[in-house]
């Protein structure tokens, strides 16, 4: 829906009048070829940079100009368009460390970024979209400058020494336009990378796109003098050269995405990318099915089956089933049913977020206390059921 609004808005804007575009008319390039420009974003926010990329994708006539957008950002997890964030990453851990949690519009798997990761986005027409050419361009640029064994494998990953992945790729294809973006690991904190990408989710059934884990390595481990600025120059210049374009102040420039007058509409894109509805609400439907045995301190053992369905990032159904190993006590079964009702009433359409789940837990806890009275056995059992359900949500 929002996409359509943006597309409609496009018609209202004479984008040639936009400040940044007028600069293209002065670019010196060979005739009959689209002009090329390298933009280096001055923002270190993943959201602002993805918004800039989206804006350029929506508003640029790539038959006239091809863009290489380069940026780096503060620590961030970036999921593919159709992924389940909770299944791909340790969301609570990342959030506790101040890591931004974001979803991009392109396909592919989850990546972890920090300031020592370079992001490259090749924006062009759908017709000229060619990931392989872009990856080869990067590899050629780096090999020209440094003695380094880089190659592109069949999955479109750039490999170092034929084994370690140093770059992940993804793309978005539209009717007339496209972008291919990729990462380049310069000196990313590998410990954070591993911890952030280690999901604590158990018992999930999901049809979302899965990431393909790979052994990764930093380029700096091979080339100690490698840094962001050097790579920007080496790759940017090679990009211009391959397009027959000269490097000058217009064709190679810093760009600040945080500027609504230069990029009319970018704030709207930014808000969408930061919204809960986009980051979590876009998650393909999934369910969690778990069985718990307990309670630990009780002589009697029960098995509790918990099923939770999640649609658009919100709980759509919770089912609790309690079974006694020997027999099913009618009284206990009713008791479980009452707790189940409490969940159904309070959890329906509840968006998965830590504060929401804490509130749900507290509500059910209050309810439990109001119904059990002084029966010690029921207090213990009820508490165990509530704790088990809460355990299912540990990934949030």
């Amino acid at each position, binding site marked *: 829906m929002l996409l359509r609004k943006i597309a409609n808005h496009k018609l209202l804007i004479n984008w040639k009048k936009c400040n940044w575009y007028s600069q293209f008319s002065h670019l010196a390039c060979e005739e009959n070829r689209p002009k090329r420009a390298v933009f280096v974003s001055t923002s270190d926010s993943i959201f602002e940079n993805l918004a800039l990329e989206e804006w350029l994708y929506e508003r640029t006539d790539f038959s006239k100009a091809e863009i290489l957008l380069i940026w780096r950002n503060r620590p961030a997890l970036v999921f593919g368009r159709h992924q389940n964030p909770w299944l791909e990453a340790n969301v609570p851990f990342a959030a506790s460390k101040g890591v931004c949690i974001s979803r991009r519009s392109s396909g592919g798997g989850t990546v972890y970024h920090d300031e020592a990761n370079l992001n490259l986005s090749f924006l062009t027409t759908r017709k000229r979209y060619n990931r392989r050419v872009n990856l080869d361009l990067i590899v050629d640029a780096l090999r020209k400058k440094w003695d380094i064994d880089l190659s592109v494998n069949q999955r479109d990953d750039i490999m170092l020494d034929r084994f370690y992945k140093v770059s992940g790729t993804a793309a978005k*294809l539209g009717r007339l336009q496209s972008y291919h973006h990729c990462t380049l690991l310069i000196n990313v904190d590998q410990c954070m990378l591993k911890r952030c990408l280690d999901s604590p989710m158990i018992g999930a059934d999901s049809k979302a796109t899965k990431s393909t884990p790979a052994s990764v390595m930093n380029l700096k481990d091979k080339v100690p003098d490698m840094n962001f600025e050097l790579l920007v120059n080496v790759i940017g210049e090679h990009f211009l050269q391959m397009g027959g374009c000269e490097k000058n102040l217009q064709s190679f420039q810093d760009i600040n995405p945080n500027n609504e007058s230069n990029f009319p509409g970018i704030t709207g894109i930014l808000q969408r990318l930061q919204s809960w509805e986009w980051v979590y609400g876009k998650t393909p*439907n999934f369910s969690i099915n778990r069985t718990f045995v307990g309670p630990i301190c009780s002589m009697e053992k029960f098995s509790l089956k918990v099923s939770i369905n999640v649609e658009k990032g919100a709980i759509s159904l919770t089912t609790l089933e309690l079974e006694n190993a020997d027999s099913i006590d009618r009284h206990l079964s009713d008791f479980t049913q009452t707790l189940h009702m409490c969940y159904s009433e309070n959890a329906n359409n509840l968006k998965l977020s830590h504060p929401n789940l804490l509130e749900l837990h507290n509500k059910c806890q209050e309810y439990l206390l109001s119904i059990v009275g002084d029966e010690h056995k029921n207090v213990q059992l009820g508490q165990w059921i509530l704790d088990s359900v809460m355990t299912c949500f540990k990934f949030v």
Partner: protein
Amino acid sequence: MAASVVRKLVVGVSSKIKLSTRSTVSVTAQIRSISFSRCLLDRLYTDKHEWVTIEKGKGTVGISEYAQEQLGEIVFVELPEVGAKLEPHDVAGCLESVKAASEVYSPVGGTVTEVNKRLSGEPKLVNSAPLTDGWLYKLDLGPNTKSEDLLDEKAYKALIGSLDTN
């Protein structure tokens, strides 16, 4: 060679196809004055490889054999919401294949009445049966639905032929 193949293909086609001197072919479908009831279940295509069949004011949309081949193995199908109102060329969904998310554009406008639920569990149906079981969504057509800028089967094949030889 390519041009002659294309010419053979378009003989007797109701669409007017202009052949330029080089290998590019510009296809201008003649305005269809035929009512929808007469072209029951004829598949009409966009130049971006979506198709629509129209029956009693209802359209069924999918992507072409050529499009699925180009995309490669599809791993996820994102479909519009039932009830969504689409204008022609609006983004209606997204197909993910080998790390790329490709937007699907609605060939006609209308209100979405049904989506192909099988695709959430079996996205590869779009690869194996793009014209049948791999349909994407159905819609009630808008009151002023026009099919002038859509291509019929033969015109679309001519377009594909020109793309392959480019």
